[in-house]
């Protein structure tokens, strides 16, 4: 069955090229998002918004790897969670200011991504996913046993501190401003990566790796680079989350977190620029409203997975992109 599968393997993203008009449209959407970010805290609860933004950045980072690199990592919780632990630890025990704590978490995720990425790209396809999952489970057990992570308790009561030692983040609105800036910067960086020459080669490798290699590209170096970038940005999201919620716990490194980010990307639209943001918004909102139903959340998540895979593979944004015939 391997032959037919390779022939029919539909590219994950719409293969439409991006034209100048599309870039203008994207710029308009970015401005729209910026306006929404400024206006939203006037009507919505800032803590909920910050949660959405942290997970949206996480999903964007994940989608960089899946949608544009064609690599399905089932262990992204490792980078998200480990960064969250390091950030919480440096902020609480070493007294780092929030920007340095976030930086230390992000660097940790980058290093972890470098090591795990180098291992995982030695195999392809389904094996790649299983390896990333197994490596992430190793990180989970490490976090469970290591002293600094606080085991089952996690690291609680992490101080938000003062940005650059000057601006206190204790107030939710101040914190929100920082998270919004981090999110915007991360999103624009990912957009830039996707549309750079590096991103073009990446998409070529995703669509036809042997051909890209025959054209002289070192596919493995590109794959490793995008893996590290994705892990780093996932770490940025995890670190920011630790400061916002003043908590780093085992939930962040558990495999269900890896599954959740896959779900967000799937619902929003794999391989679309804006899909993961919409996906994170939908899933976080769903979880917030369904939290009272306990274990039903897992069941509903599972159903959403099944429905998306069977009927709705483009995701929300992918569907809109198809309707207006523009890559989004």
């Amino acid at each position, binding site marked *: 069955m*391997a*032959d037919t599968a390779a022939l029919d393997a539909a590219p994950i993203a719409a293969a439409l090229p991006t034209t100048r008009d599309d870039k203008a449209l994207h710029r308009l959407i970015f401005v729209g998002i910026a306006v929404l970010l400024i206006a939203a805290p006037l009507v919505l609860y800032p803590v909920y918004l910050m949660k959405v933004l942290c997970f949206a950045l996480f999903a964007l980072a994940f989608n960089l790897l899946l949608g544009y690199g064609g690599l399905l990592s089932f262990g992204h919780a490792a980078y998200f969670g480990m960064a969250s632990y390091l950030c919480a630890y440096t902020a609480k025990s070493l007294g780092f200011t929030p920007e340095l704590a976030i930086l230390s978490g992000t660097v940790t995720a980058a290093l972890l991504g470098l090591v795990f990425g180098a*291992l995982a790209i030695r*195999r392809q396809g389904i094996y790649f996913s299983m390896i990333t999952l197994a490596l992430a*489970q190793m990180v989970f057990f490490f976090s469970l046993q290591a002293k600094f992570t606080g085991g089952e308790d996690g690291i609680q009561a992490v101080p938000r501190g003062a940005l650059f030692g000057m601006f206190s983040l204790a107030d939710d609105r101040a914190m929100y401003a920082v998270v919004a800036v981090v999110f915007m910067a991360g999103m624009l960086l990912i957009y830039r990566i996707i549309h750079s020459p590096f991103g073009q080669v990446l998409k070529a490798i995703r669509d036809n790796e042997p051909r890209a290699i025959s054209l002289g590209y070192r596919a493995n170096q590109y794959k490793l680079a995008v893996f590290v970038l994705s892990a780093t940005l996932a770490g940025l999201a995890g670190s920011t989350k630790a400061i916002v919620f003043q908590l780093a716990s085992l939930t962040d490194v558990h495999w269900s977190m890896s*599954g959740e980010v896959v779900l967000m990307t799937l619902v929003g639209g794999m391989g679309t620029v804006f899909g993961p943001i919409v996906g994170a918004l939908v899933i976080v909102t769903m979880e917030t409203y369904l939290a009272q139903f306990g*274990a039903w959340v897992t069941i509903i998540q*599972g159903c959403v997975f099944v429905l998306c*895979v069977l009927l709705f593979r483009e995701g929300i944004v992918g569907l809109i992109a198809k309707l207006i015939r523009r890559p989004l």
Partner: protein
Amino acid sequence: MTTIFGVPTQALFGQLLLGLINGSFYAILSLGLAIIFGLLNIINFAHGALYMMGAFVAWMLLTYFGLGYWWALGLAPLVVGAFGIVLERVLIARLYKLDHLYGLLLTFGLALIIQGLFRNQYGVSGLPYAIPAELSGGQRLPFMFLPNYRAWVVVASLTVCIATWLVIEKTKLGAYLRAATENPTLVQAFGVNVPLFLTLTYGFGVALAGFAGVLAAPIYSVNPNMGADIIIVVFAVVVIGGMGSIIGSVITGFALGLVEGLTKVFYPEASATVIFVIMVLVLLVKPAGLFGRTA
């Protein structure tokens, strides 16, 4: 008391036996995964959930119908297998023409649903399942005490693994299966009903998982989370062994169980991670896996 490397022999052999038991489950589960992957090209993430379901079916047969262990050993794999056939026909069969990753995502979603439903119904504390009367007690060997049930688990799983291997390697049915794995189009052209084969293979693969679940029920308590914990380890086992060979996945499963048992004796802190560490080492030295074929 006799000791080996400063460890009492009783503890050493006890852990080795426990390792062998875990290895039995790794072997049966990775065998099922390998068969399913070979023919369907799908990594069955729901395998752990179906293993858990096997244990629960055994518990339900006893609690609601008064049918004991031996009935469960025969019926639970059938129930799980039938459930698997329904899943394959209704859901999984729609994905054969798509990228492999959709199969992984779909079965992941199924695993979440199955686990969630059982967790809702039965909680997470676990339900007890007694060892059958015929197999209670144990043998006092010169170097250790051997509980009968544990010996039975090792023997039963070895038997099932070897029988499966014989069917696949030595019978006509197995020959069809291997041919369909190599080139389904050609086999279909020869008049073999390949879609039916796919369905039955999936059913058989998950029935193996259900069988493992029944074996596990008296050892570990019957718990909705039992499958989620083991499936990730089994994935690592599959990466280490490579899915190219049936007997390879069986050997790898048992061997890694033993290694895990030994680690529990000599360096308990690493016992949860040792299999993942071995996976890293194997990836560095022989990326295709110990028994894998380089694609």
